[in-house]
């Protein structure tokens, strides 16, 4: 579904990604893990057209989408939920949601989808006229995920969805991602809470120093002592 071939890229002339390779299948959840500075969030930005790609390829269902702009990626059915707070603070919940479909030529369809998405996230319906800044951190994250679903994406890139959320809300967010996977959406996630994320994922991907170090089924990675070592801040030994 999504394939990265020897991707090199970074910010201006600074190289962060030094050869990222992976293939993730359709309707699966893949968690990207790795130490700080491994390039996890940078990979997402590279895929979504927010970063200079120096070389390599990004393929989506075989189609080359390397260096496509964010608007083009949305057109290809890809949405991105970055880490941190990503709402438009002074706009209402409803208008924040509406922005998720701003690139669509079919605004009637967007309206219908907004109603459907609010059925999935009833809190949003209750607070539709409130300013987004007035929502709690967890509610803002739900709004961001709902907004990302508006155009029926086939791939969601979600970066650190659990940051700032209570354990209950983290479980809710994970349950939402599993539900999306079951509906045929492909999910690529970076998550600080790596063990919990791998436990609900189909595949795992270990990045270190901007390179793919391991890529396997999530349960295999969970059982691998080298990954455990990595979680404690160590490095993966070659071989």
């Amino acid at each position, binding site marked *: 579904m999504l394939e990265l071939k020897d991707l090199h890229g970074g910010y201006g002339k600074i190289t962060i990604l030094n050869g990222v390779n992976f293939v993730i299948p359709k309707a699966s959840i893949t968690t990207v893990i790795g130490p700080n500075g491994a390039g996890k969030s940078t990979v997402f930005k590279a895929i979504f057209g927010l970063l200079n790609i120096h070389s390599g390829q990004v393929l989506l269902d075989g189609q080359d989408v390397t260096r496509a702009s964010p608007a083009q990626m949305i057109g290809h059915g890809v949405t991105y939920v970055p880490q941190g707070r990503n709402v438009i603070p002074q706009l209402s919940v409803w208008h924040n949601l509406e922005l998720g479909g701003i*690139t669509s030529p079919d605004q009637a369809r967007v309206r219908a989808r907004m109603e459907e998405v609010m059925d999935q996230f009833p809190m949003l319906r209750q607070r539709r006229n409130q300013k987004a800044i007035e929502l709690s951190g967890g509610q803002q994250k739900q709004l961001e995920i709902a907004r990302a679903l508006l155009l029926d994406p086939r791939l969601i890139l979600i970066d650190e969805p659990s940051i700032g959320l209570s354990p209950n809300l983290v479980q809710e967010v994970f349950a939402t991602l599993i539900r999306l996977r079951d509906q045929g959406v492909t999910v690529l996630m970076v998550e600080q809470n790596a063990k919990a994320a791998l436990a609900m994922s189909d595949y795992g991907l270990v990045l270190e120093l901007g390179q793919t170090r391991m890529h396997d089924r999530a349960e295999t990675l969970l059982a691998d002592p080298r990954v455990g070592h990595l979680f404690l801040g160590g490095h993966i030994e070659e071989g």
Partner: protein
Amino acid sequence: MSQFLQVLLSGLSTGSIYALAAIGFTLVWQAAQTVNFAQGEFVMLPAFFVLIGIHWLHMPLWLALIFGLIVAVIVLGLLFKKLIVEPMLPNGGLPLIIATMALSILLKEGTKQFYGAEAQPYPSLFPQTTLHMDGAVVSVQDLLNLVVSLTIVVALTLFLNRTRTGRCMQATAQNPAVAEILGVNTKRMVLYTFLINAALAALASFLISPVYLAKFSNGETLGLVAFIAAIVGGFNQIRGALAGGLLIGVLDNLTATYVTTEYRAALPLVLLIVIILWRPQGLLGTSEGRKV
């Protein structure tokens, strides 16, 4: 009482024009996180574009106004953004602020060289008649200036809040990184902001010039008062800029009439100091966090 009403209306009229210029400060701040210190000259210059239309191109007033508006939008909106803001902004806000100060001098001195240092008569847009209301004599020009300015502010607010383009502009101003991720054409939205700022400055120019006449140095006072109005009202809110403009216009007139004309120019500065000490975010502004 009748005199008070007269002074109040006249103050609201001038204040509403200050508000148009002050909103420009707010818009540019939101779009580029910088202060345009040439804003006063942006209000001074379009009046001269109209005079060029009338005197050099022999246009009737209505056509000269359209000509002035179009030239202002191109020169003070499009070219300002492309030639000054875009090249300077990557170097940070401060170099851009200094560049706008230099632009202010260039526009002022350029106008003086081109059109002379004397104040130029400027045609009135509205009838020079008066109305008698409750014993007060009210200038029709003041009244219509107020109505037109407020209509422009209301139209702008409706555009920003009720249209998708307006909400995309707000999204770009409030969180450009997220707006881009959502597929908003942020560059275009920023351009729209600069074009609207230029149009507002031009409209303020057309309304105030019959009162102040067209003079190369008009921007000094207008720019300063509008800047103070934006800070007093709240630099990051359009309604704040409106409130600040109206407040300064009214207080200025009331002071001149009931206290002293000698120190009227000091009043906005005193108000500025009080507001900065008491409520730094302005009367209707909101505090903004900034990462350093």
